[in-house]
């Protein structure tokens, strides 16, 4: 048996099932994104976040509990929030944390690891996700906005929140006058639906690409030949499961069920799979191209890949 064997029918079942599972969550995210665009005033975000950058990052890491999104759905929401002027560091923190630190994922993780000390797995997954997201949020503070965001997104950003984190003061007379114009509820809902539709199409493009890659991996790669040599070494197991998470591009609401399958792998490797996957995978790497500069996305992918693995291995070696 070759390590690679492609079959169109197997590919299409896998591709469609990934799409069918992900599209409703993606749609939910884009609808929320449309509603945020139409109804959330730019000032609201400024009011909700603490002034201190560290506190703002910490709060952003926990917002997912109140605004639960999967990793596909959160991208249009964050892009919309960035357009509205949300500071980049908390936005990135929310982007990374919310697909894991939310009640839906907590429930699915606990259910998936039933019989495998689910409380410990759940606690470590949440803790690691929070730490990684906040650390990366802090790293983002060291970058200039122009090094992170795409030029068109940067140009569309509301300057209302520019006074946060030492940036330029507000010069938003035009926006203030625009905010005073209050469209009717019906036209706002219509605008929300139109925005959601276009956001959906933008993100669906990358979802299709990612799902195709994941389907090829799911159906054409011989698992025995690829996986067996990797499971016995802690470092190799951890980084190989991270690689698998990147390739499979699973939804955070269901990836724990897959991770629970890897009984032969150490806990560190399974945690790395469940923490890195919702933060960075093939599909997300492409989707992040809607928000971030390519160089920043590559930096983000590399640092998350290395950082999550190191932290999981460190955690597993310090535990009794």
């Amino acid at each position, binding site marked *: 048996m070759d390590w690679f064997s492609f079959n169109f029918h197997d590919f299409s079942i896998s591709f469609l099932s990934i799409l069918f599972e992900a599209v409703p969550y993606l749609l939910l995210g884009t609808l929320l994104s449309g509603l945020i665009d139409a109804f959330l005033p730019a000032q609201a975000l400024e009011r909700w976040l603490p002034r201190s950058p560290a506190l703002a990052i910490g709060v952003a890491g926990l917002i997912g509990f109140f605004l639960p999104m999967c990793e596909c759905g959160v991208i249009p929401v964050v892009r919309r929030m960035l357009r509205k002027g949300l500071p980049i560091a908390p936005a990135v923190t929310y982007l990374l944390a919310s697909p894991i630190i939310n009640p839906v994922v907590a429930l699915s993780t606990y259910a998936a690891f039933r019989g495998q000390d689910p409380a410990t797995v759940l606690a470590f997954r949440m803790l690691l996700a929070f730490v990684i997201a906040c650390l990366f949020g802090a790293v983002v503070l060291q970058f200039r906005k122009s090094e992170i965001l795409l030029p068109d997104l940067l140009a569309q950003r509301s300057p209302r929140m520019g006074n946060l984190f030492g940036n330029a003061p507000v010069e938003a007379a035009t926006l203030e006058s625009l905010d005073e114009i209050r469209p009717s509820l019906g036209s706002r809902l219509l605008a929300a639906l139109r925005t959601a539709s276009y956001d959906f199409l933008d993100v669906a493009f990358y979802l*299709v690409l990612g799902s195709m890659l994941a389907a090829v991996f799911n159906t054409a790669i011989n*698992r025995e030949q690829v996986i067996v040599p990797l499971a016995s070494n802690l470092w190799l197991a951890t980084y190989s499961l991270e690689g698998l998470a990147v390739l499979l591009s699973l939804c955070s609401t269901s990836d724990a069920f897959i991770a629970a399958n890897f009984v032969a792998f150490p806990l560190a490797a399974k945690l790395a799979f469940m923490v890195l996957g919702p933060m960075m995978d093939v599909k997300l790497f492409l989707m992040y191209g809607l928000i971030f500069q390519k160089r920043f996305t590559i930096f983000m992918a590399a640092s998350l890949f290395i950082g999550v693995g190191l932290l999981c291995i460190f955690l597993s070696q310090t535990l009794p």
Partner: protein
Amino acid sequence: MNPKATSVLPPIVLLEWGGVLLYFHLSGRINAFLHPSFRLNVLLAGIVLSLCALTLLVTRKQSAMCECGPAGNCGDRRAPLVSSWLFPLMLLLPLGIAASFTRDSFGANFLATRGVADHASAIPGLAEKFKKNLPSLAQTAPAAQIIEPGLPEANPSAPTGNNPPAVEDVNAENFFKPDASGNIKVNVGDLLYAAQEPSLSATFVNKSAEVVGQFMPAKTNNPDGSRFKLVRLFMTCCAADAQPVSLLVERAADLPIPAGVSEMGWTKVVGDITFPLENGRATAIIRARKIEPVSPPEETMLY
């Protein structure tokens, strides 16, 4: 692309996506792709996407006159992708082609790449299902853990955390009653689980059973060529995570495989349940008395 195409294509794409989701849900074909807990989402998404498409279509002319301010309140912000030739290529073709030509079950190639497990612990949540059927197990048996099928077992004969402990007072007979022809209807997973659990295997052994699965030739553990496998795939969330498991079937020399039975074809086997020790562990094997092709069950990938 010209402006007319860029204004017409988005609603067409949304209509296609909404239509595909609605078709798969309403036709029941979604059963082969998603676990029941995700199926309603598909129906709702199909309806919302169709509504989005209609909204874009109806307001197409209105949006052409809309001058979006910095706040973007008219909602008519179009990404550069929409005007690119990549847009219809990626959003119309892959979904359209896959939805048009897909079958509702995996083929033999999938089993070869994924690996077929012959152990009940490969089926997520199997122990939980047994707990429902066999209340006496609920007090003692742990949840089944799952092995990566491609991984070799360190010591198959040694008891591991994957094996449920011995359970007393198992009353499986109350839950697997014979039908009019004297056969108990069992699932591939039932027998794989029973092989791990001595009390259950004692209940099942030598009973006449009817099992349905997909036919696969046995390429290993088949010294005289009289064996084949009944395979079932069990999904956790969607077909992409489906795990194949197999049950060995042994037929007598005078019992041929019917002409209608093909590789991965749905097959019914009637025979006696046995649990011989093979390679150091109890293995569920059906000694077949009858083999016949059957239609696929309504739920092909659920336990």
